[in-house]
């Protein structure tokens, strides 16, 4: 309901052409009752617009910026070390079994006891080495799985996610690469998404370029193509993107890629 406290809002809507028929009728009635306000409406200058002073800038942006320091995950290292130690112990046992086939049951039981004690000790050391914060957040276990995935990928570096006559998406060295067809060279289509950034290569010789702003454009291009043609491969692609976001990051130089520790 228009009154002396809010009539300016109706004036503004009227001047900017955003007033409804009902509000316009109400405004006309109000102005008939308060003719002195018509002058106020007529004198309003909608072209009186302020422009920002671009010379005023905030020069301490680096002080506002934040960087997360990725600490080494000792839990993962300990786990890998324990697997390595266990492997050596089992190799020795197998070797002993072959060289001394007449070994009796009591010495076997004794060996098993020793192995179990070693395993317990290694597990205790591994638990001690997990930082307190990571223990609380359960990060130790999660990272262990990722490292195992990394190992698998190192063994089989060229893992084709999708392959057809017109589209190839494959993974090399933990990165997603993409090109239109088998016969074409990888040029501008060589696109990688890492940690919310798009990294691309114009030619195979050039260094990787990074474009954070272009992220949606390129990722959506790839996703749309895959969604339209390859329903089956979509999950693999999404999983790979998720894997990259979790495990690969831009290093401190802001240019190169590296594995998150």
């Amino acid at each position, binding site marked *: 309901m228009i009154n002396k406290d809010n009539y*300016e809002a109706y*004036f*503004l809507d009227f001047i900017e052409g955003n007033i409804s028929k009902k509000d316009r009728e109400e405004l006309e009635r109000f102005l008939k009752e308060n003719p002195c306000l018509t002058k106020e409406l007529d*004198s309003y200058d909608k072209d009186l617009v*302020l422009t920002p002073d671009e010379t005023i800038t905030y020069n301490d942006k680096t002080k506002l*910026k*934040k960087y997360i320091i990725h600490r080494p995950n000792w839990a993962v290292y300990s786990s890998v070390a324990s697997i390595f130690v266990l492997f050596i112990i089992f190799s020795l046992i197998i070797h002993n079994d072959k060289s001394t086939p007449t070994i009796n049951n009591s010495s076997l039981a004794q060996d098993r006891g020793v192995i179990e004690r070693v395993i317990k000790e290694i597990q205790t050391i591994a638990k001690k080495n997990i930082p307190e914060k990571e223990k609380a957040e359960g990060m130790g276990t999660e990272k262990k799985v990722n490292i195992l995935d990394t190992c698998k990928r190192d063994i089989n570096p060229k893992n084709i996610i999708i392959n057809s006559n017109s589209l190839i998406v494959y993974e090399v060295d933990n990165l997603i690469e993409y090109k239109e067809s088998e016969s074409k060279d990888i040029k501008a289509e060589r696109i990688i998404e890492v940690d*919310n950034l798009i990294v691309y290569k114009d030619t195979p010789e050039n260094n990787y370029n990074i474009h*954070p702003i272009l992220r949606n454009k390129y990722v959506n291009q790839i996703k749309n193509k895959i969604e339209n043609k390859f329903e089956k491969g979509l999950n693999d692609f999404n999983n790979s993107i998720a894997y990259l976001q979790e495990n690969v990051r831009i290093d401190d130089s802001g240019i190169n890629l590296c594995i998150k520790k």
Partner: protein
Amino acid sequence: MTEKEYNICVDLFADNVYRFLLKHIRCSDYAKDIMQDSFLKLWERREEIGFEKSKSYVFTIAYHNMIDQFRKIEISKKEVSQDREIKNTYSDAKEILNSALETLPSIQKSTILLRDYEGYSYAEISEILDISLEKVKVYIFRARKSLKEYIVSIDNIID
């Protein structure tokens, strides 16, 4: 919002927020304190706030921090009283307009700056300043009317 997106926010919006604050408090030290605090809050809540909402969020925080500062130290009154002294020499229209802006009440200044400098819609301004849509329109209308009156009065003095 990720760490990278947060740092992009700093690059994209820090100048805008700083200009907005300086237009109100005209004291770079206070403005820088508010900047630090506002961006720190954005960083702390980055998991909940999407990149697309980050600009509005940081303006909202900066505005409310500024109001708190006004209440605590009443710098607003001091600064405004100093700047309200009408000068009789102006180099250009922009300077007159800036001088006119200083005479506006804080809330009118905020609405007109968010509208003209940042291009926010009335609904977005209502959200940032936590006032009704109707109030936003009223303040914008009153602000432009006051600016016009100030310019006309200066013209008369110069003539």
